[in-house]
Structures are given as C-alpha cells and as structure tokens.
C-alpha cells in the first residue's frame, strides 16, 4: 500500500511540523495569535523567511527527508506581498511541486501545504495550524 492511502488511528503520535512564515504577514500573524492568546498545538517549528518566495522547493523536500512529518508554508495574500509578486512565484512553484514531485513520489499531498495568512489574522493562523496538525496526526509519521 502506498503512503498516500495509509490513514488511520495514530494515537499518542506528536508530529514534527515545519512552518515557513514570511516576515511581513504570517510571522506577524503568528505573533498576533500569541499575543491574543489563541491556542494552537505546539507541534510547529516556525522558520522566519523574508518572503514566502524565499522558500525553495528543495527546502520542503529536505525538511521531509530530515524528519518532518508535514511542512506548511505561509505568506501574504496574493496582491499583498511586501515584494510585490514574491508569493505569486511561490504559488506557481507550489503547484508544480505538487503536480510533479509530491504526487509522483507517493507522498501524501496533505503533508505539504501552502496557506495565505495576513498580519491581522491571528485567529486564522491558529485555526490553520490546528487543522494542519490534526491532518498530520491522522496521517501518522512520515518515516516508520
């Protein structure tokens, strides 16, 4: 059975999740979530990047290889990028990564996600992370 189809109960499993957050929107959003005391699971490790466009697809693959169970990349909403069009490149690259690499590798596509979170959306940040963590928990560890 391929990895993509394996789902089930993984009780007590605490996933490692790497979250790339862009400095101008999502990182500030995460900050806001913290300041406003919205609860979200502590499984994520945030890596601050200047723009979601800085996240090379190879970073995502390396994170998975080195033990992450899921990778989430967050950036400003389309049109709001601090560098005008950085996130548009990210979006394009992500679509390619999903359709060509993730799919053919047999990795469950749910493990890698792209989300837009703005600086004022602290609540949304907490929601996105909670949802993603629950998804990964259901999928179980990437390496067995």
């Amino acid at each position: 059975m391929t990895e993509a189809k394996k789902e089930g109960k993984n009780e007590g499993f605490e996933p490692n999740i790497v979250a790339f957050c862009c400095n101008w929107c999502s990182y500030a959003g995460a900050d806001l979530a913290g300041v406003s005391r919205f609860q979200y699971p502590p499984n994520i490790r945030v890596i601050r990047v200047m723009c979601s466009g800085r996240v090379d697809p190879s970073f995502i693959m390396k994170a998975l290889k080195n033990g992450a169970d899921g990778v989430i990349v967050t950036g400003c909403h389309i049109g709001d990028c601090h560098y005008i069009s950085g996130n548009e490149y990210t979006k394009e690259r992500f679509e390619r990564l999903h359709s060509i690499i993730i799919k053919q590798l047999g990795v469950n596509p749910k493990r890698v996600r792209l989300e837009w979170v703005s600086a004022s959306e602290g609540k949304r940040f907490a929601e996105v992370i909670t949802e993603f963590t629950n998804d990964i928990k259901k999928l179980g560890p990437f390496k067995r």
Partner: protein
Amino acid sequence: MIIITEIEKKKDSKDIVNDIDSYLSKIYDPNLRNLLRKCYQCGTCSGVCQLSKVQKFTPSRIIEMILEGFENRVIESGVLWDCIMCNSCLQNCPEDVNFADLVRMAKYKMRNIEDQNPEEYIAHKGIYTTLSEIMSESNLQPERTLDWVPKECKITESGKIMYYVGCLPFFKFEFENIDSIATSTLKLICQIEKEPIVVLKEESCCGHDLYWGQGKFEPFIELAKKNLKMFENAGISTIITACAECYRTLKVDYSNLFEDFDKKFEVQHIIEYIYNSWKENKIEFKNPEQTSEPIQFTFHDPCRLSRFLPKSNNIIHKVREIFNHLEKIGYKFNEMEHSKENSLCCGVSSWMNCNERSKALRYKRLSEAKAAGTKVVTSCPKCIMHLSCLKDDFEEFGSMEILDFSEFLVNLVNVIDGNEKKEEEK
C-alpha cells in the same frame, strides 16, 4: 556537517540490524591507499585531467600525499569535492589507478568532517538528490504518472522486457519536455517487440547520484535492494534503459552489490538494443524526408558510456556503426575534435559542482560540437539538460539542436516484419 537529531540516531540503530554493513564492505574500502599503491607518479593524470584546464587541480599530487600518509590533510581540506568524476585520468593512467573511485570513497569520509558543507556543492539546491534519498525510505512507494506513454504502446506490470525510465519524470519539474526521451524510447521498443513492455509506476531511482556524487552509500544500498525486489516481483529478464548513468549503475554497481544480478537480468542500453535488432535484421533505417543535402550531425559521448564501463564493452563503437550506416539515408556523421574515450565532459556529473568552471567546460564542448554539425546527439539525459542550459544562455549556439539518441532515431526506424519479407521473396 553532522546534524544529530533524534531521527538520525534512530536511523543509525536501524542500520546495525540491517545487513547494510556487509553490502557496504563490497563498495567501500576505508583504507584509501589500497587503491593507489600501483601509482608511480608519472603525472599523466594531472596532464589529462579535464578539471585542471579550468582550475588548479592535480590528481597525481593528491595521490602522492595520500600515499605518503597525509590522507587526513587531504580529507580535511575538502579539495576532492571539486573533482567532476569524468574518469579521464583512469582512461590514460598506465597503471589503471582508479582515481574517481578513490574520490567516491573519500566523499564518504568527507561527509563526516565537521566543518565541510557538501550541500554547497550540490546543484539545484539538492532537490533531486533529496528525492532519491526520500525514495530510499522503505515505506514509501513512488506513484509515477505515466502520461508520457505514447498511445499506441502497450504496457504491463509483469513480463519479460522492462523499460527502466529513471528519474526523467521528476526532472520535468525544471526541464520541460525532458520526458520526450522516455516517449521516444518506449516508441522504439514497442515497435520492435510484439509483447507489451513492463513500465512500473513504483520504480525507484537507481541511486547513481548518491553513490558517485555525495558518498551516501547507505541510501544507495537501500535503493538497490528496493529495485532488485521490484525487478524480481515483475519477473523480468531484460532491462532496457536510455540513461547512461542508470546503465552503468545497473550493469556494474548493482552487480558488485548482488553477486547474481548480471545472471538474472540482462541490462541493455537503448543503443545496444537498437544495434542488436539491426544486426538481427529486425529493423532497417529509413528516412521519409530525405533531402539531397545531407544533414550534418555529431555525437557527444557521455562519460558513463565511454569511460565508466569495462574495456570489453564497445557500446561507443556500436553507436558509430549505426551512425555511419545512416549516411545512406541522408545523414552525415562527423566526429568532434575530442571523441570516444577522449571526449570532453559536459561539466557536471551527479548534480555536483555546477559553477562557472563547469560552465567553461561546457562552453568548450558545445563549441566543438558546433564545428561538427548543427545536430548534437547524445545518450544521457543529464548531458542534454546541461548542454541545453548553456545553449539557452548563448546566442551563438541558438541554431543548434541537442537530441537524445532515441529522439533522433524515433522516426528513422522501420520494422521489418515476417510477412513483408515473404512478399519480397515472391
């Protein structure tokens, strides 16, 4: 660079349970001097070294240092990451000292030196080699898309003849149309064979780049074991590949790992396959659009076919026999200035060291090719990617066409079937 994380530790303990160590001893000898004892310091290798043309690099001196007991200094300096693994030195060495093999083993040692960062040397930020490593995970099964398979071809999951695609569908991430190599190869095989061809969705990488490029032998062994199991399950006896690197790995390196690999499976390169079919009178070459003016073309020998195979393998002569025959159908084959065993390197192997120096080597190669003809045929997907990348940067090469052997031949092959022959006899 060592990252000691919990996962890394877990992995180590798993390896001890595995039989990795016994496999490792077959491809790795910790005493580097054993490989070099025959060297008598004639210096030929430093003279022919392709890298020495663009930077200071003297293999004979490195050998001397290791022989005199300064192995640690060599390993610590990290100088061996620069070698482009073209094997020109072995080709010219009077004593058959295998320097590239030494570099491969030294890389395994260099990985563990604290202040060296091999990641710096990996091209494309290491995405493709990371993929190979992920594929070596035992619980992961690739699910390749087969959208490149031409409609008229029948494929199956078990049978006698397999087409081993290699990583082409993954390279599509950055190189559009690279899978047309796979399409043309499969088209050629399907035309000649009556039975459906095995093309597997769950095919893994052969591990060549981990083995030669980064000295990551453990994932290489895992990949090899995975592939062997896959071949056995599909019940195949012949493996055909269109990739020079896969060919060398399956033919030589897998046989080193598994004793009976070469007895169980016959590995053929598409060049050999076409050559054999031609000699057995299964096919002939025809050109539907023959013009009076012959089309000039040339062949770039990939290092994995010209210098990395046992001396008895004459695949580079077979391909020339085919090409010279094409003169009858309106093609004129020209040799480049450096050809066969002496051919120049495309500059990058195993996704390592793509930099201004390797670009200089590539420029040299493409200039030679331009002098010999507008069409350049080669038989290694990586050579195609590297040369095309340079071609796009320079206007002067704009008119050139870089093709794979199978792409070049796909419309020139005509299958002779039994019925036709009988009619001719009447």
